[in-house]
């Protein structure tokens, strides 16, 4: 359909006959580009040289091996959580509380790791990892069960539970689980080495958690595109009425996708505490659970897309730190960039359905 509002206009917006597949994957790139432009502009207004600031933000942090390892370290939880979230988002379930599921997974796995704090053994790490996944699943099952049996809104429930989990963690590390030899610092004992994810390279912080993320990518790709469950999720994502008509067991699926999502977030929590830190403390995650929502959409809920998206977004974490150190720009700028990416992504999605035509002036 062609709408010609005024003949004199130079630019015409035309509805696409069908959403373009190429545009579908190009708009995230466009969004990132626009974010850089807008970011440069903000730096300029703040009185910094825009190119230099962007360099500190996006290039300096990953210019050496250490930086690259840090990039992967940050991208790992983002990727893992985003994969889990895409199970929910693809099937029309809006789990906003991955941060809470991450925290609760960290609490449960941390608790188990603390039980073994003075023991060594190959069996400890698998138990700790499993405990984290179960913790995340338990916590995700709350909004899922409330949604299926009491018709509550999962967005609100899952979001509010984030704050509950953070307060529980706070209470534990200050109170019952605090390190008896820790001079009242809000942190637990150090886990034993057997409860730690092994480091991959001597001297760098990148750890074996990355394999969990890669496994999640492969498994989710297989489930999404090759299984009946993936098909049912796709149908439910497009139309819940159709899913009902087809006879899919809606409640079962809601609970299942929340459990998968919670398990992934829980595993990300395990990675955080048993990787570089090795203990529970107040801040196990710099809002990875929320940022992963952006990652999931930037990656178009596609497992491969999510890998790229998690790398891009991970840079904003690192860039914020370098920019703070070298330029005294507050590190919250990182969140500004994350917000801008999402904003521009949603805006460029307009191009999925419309195209802009430049035409000559008709006088």
């Amino acid at each position: 359909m062609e709408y010609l509002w005024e003949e004199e206009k130079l630019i015409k917006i035309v509805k696409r006959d069908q959403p373009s597949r190429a545009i579908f994957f190009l708009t995230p790139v466009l969004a990132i580009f626009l974010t850089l432009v807008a970011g440069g502009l903000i730096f300029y207004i703040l009185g910094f040289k825009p190119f230099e600031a962007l360099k500190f933000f996006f290039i300096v942090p990953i210019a050496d091996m250490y930086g690259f390892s840090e990039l992967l370290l940050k991208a790992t939880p983002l990727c893992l959580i985003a994969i889990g979230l895409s199970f929910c988002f693809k099937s029309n379930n809006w789990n906003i509380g991955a941060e809470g599921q991450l925290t609760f997974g960290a609490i449960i796995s941390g608790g188990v790791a603390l039980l073994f704090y003075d023991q060594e053994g190959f069996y400890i790490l698998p138990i700790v990892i499993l405990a984290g996944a179960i913790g995340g699943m338990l916590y995700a099952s709350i909004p899922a069960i409330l949604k299926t049996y009491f018709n509550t809104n999962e967005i609100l429930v899952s979001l509010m539970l984030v704050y509950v989990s953070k307060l529980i963690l706070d209470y534990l590390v200050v109170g019952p689980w605090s390190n008896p030899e820790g001079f009242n610092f809000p942190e637990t004992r150090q886990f034993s080495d057997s409860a730690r994810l092994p480091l991959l390279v001597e001297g760098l912080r990148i750890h074996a958690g990355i394999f969990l993320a890669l496994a999640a990518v492969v498994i989710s790709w297989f489930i999404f595109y090759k299984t009946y469950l993936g098909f049912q999720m796709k149908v439910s994502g497009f139309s819940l009425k159709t899913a009902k008509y087809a006879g899919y067991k809606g409640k079962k699926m809601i609970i299942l996708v929340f459990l998968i999502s919670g398990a992934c977030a829980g595993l990300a929590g395990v990675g955080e505490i048993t990787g570089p830190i090795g203990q529970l403390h107040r801040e196990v995650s710099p809002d990875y659970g929320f940022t992963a929502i952006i990652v999931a959409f930037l990656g178009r809920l596609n497992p491969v897309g999510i890998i790229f998206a998690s790398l891009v977004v991970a840079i904003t974490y690192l860039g914020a730190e370098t920019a703070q150190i070298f330029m005294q720009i507050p590190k919250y700028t990182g969140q500004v960039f994350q917000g801008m990416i999402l904003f521009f992504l949603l805006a460029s999605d307009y191009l999925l359905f419309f195209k802009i035509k430049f035409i000559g002036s008709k006088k």
Partner: protein
Amino acid sequence: MNTNLKISNVSKIYPGCIANDNISLEFKSGKIYALLGENGAGKSTLVKILSGVIIPDKGEIFLNNKILKLKSPIDAKKKKIGMVFQHFNLFETLSVFENLIIDSDENRENLHEKIQSIMKKYNFSIDLDIPVLNLSAGQKQKVEIIRCLIRNPEVLIMDEPTSVLTEQETSELFSSLRQFSMEGILIIYITHKLKEVMSLCDEVAVMRKGKLVSVSKIVNEKIETLANKMVGQNLKTVRKSISNERSSEKLIKISNLSFSSEDPFETNLVNINFEVNRGECLGIAGISGNGQSELFQILSGEIISDKNSIEFNSNFIGNLNPQERREYLMAFSPEDRLEQAAIPQMKIFENVALNNFKSSNFFNNGLINENKIKEHAKKIISDFNVNTDNIELKSQFLSGGNLQKLIIGRELITSPDLLICFNPTWGLDVGAINYIHKTLIKINDQNKSIILISTDTDELLKLSDKISVIHKGKLSKIMNSDEVTSEKLGILMGGGEID
């Protein structure tokens, strides 16, 4: 007012199709004109040209003998041409008044006063302060009409206005239109419903495939002559060969089925009882919104009921979901093709996999068996005349008729004992309607049964062996279709009683 609107040699060409081929027409105020044609005849293009949405490639429009150059819908409004589209252009979450003030130049007080006087004059009663989403379709349409009337239009164009209205609302609309016409507003009424043309309009212009076929006075026409002009051939009605040797073997029995909903927009069902024998078609008539949708969902298993309320083939299945019911050889074709029966964004073969039961082997051990699904999709396409050979095509690119053939084909290819369908030919062109009707008759002849829930009484009379009417969630007594007349149906549908 003495308005004269003239279309002179207007053409509009799209790639691959001539939407309007040299159309010339003249309209004068005081009369109601019908623009009649099938889907794709070019009516909508012509109307969009008149309302400034589309600029014609060739030709001119004259209003009161002055040439009219419309560059945008705003232009048309300024030139006092009002238009009510089939799909409403209202913001659901804004109030009625907010919707009306958006494109008005007047201040709040004046506008409010003006709306009140319009509503009083035409006997509309709409609360201006409630959100539009709380209005019925008929009320929404009135809001659109008020929006036009605010600008004192000389021409009012109505595009398929009754497709969403109940019969009651339709008759209200007609009396308003007659009143407007008497006050000198020129009315152009676009439709493909012959009966409406006969009862409402004074003159009729028929279009077919982009061309103007005829212009005539209604008094010189009959439904049959108009239908012939519109379709371009003598209507070949399929008719069921009524057989007296239908088996009397009971297939499905519904007993004491009731349903009450917490949702005020749903209709409660009250003590529904009926039986359908093998090889029989039971038609359920009624004005839309009287419980048909709820009844369909209960029969299909989307809403689960008491186990014993539905007995199918000597099994009690009231508590089973649609997929489980398919295992007992039931099939379902819902009303909403685009939002329920199929997913437009998915490929044809993927849509085929929506009707899945064990023996179809579409999914083995939880994995998708794409080859099996594709093989099945190809068979449906060829057996049911779906006009494409590409099963990888997204189903949004199928026309309504082809999509419905695909859906009916998907449901029937497994040869179920019972097909339950809800408005199977809604919005389709005559060719597709005939095909679907023939198909339904054929499955009756194969001793399979049908429950046909439809708002189209002609369809029901044509296809059903027995007919019942649903009104406010209650089912009338079941009549043999040869003793039913459209008059009897009309009375029952309106909530009346017959002997």
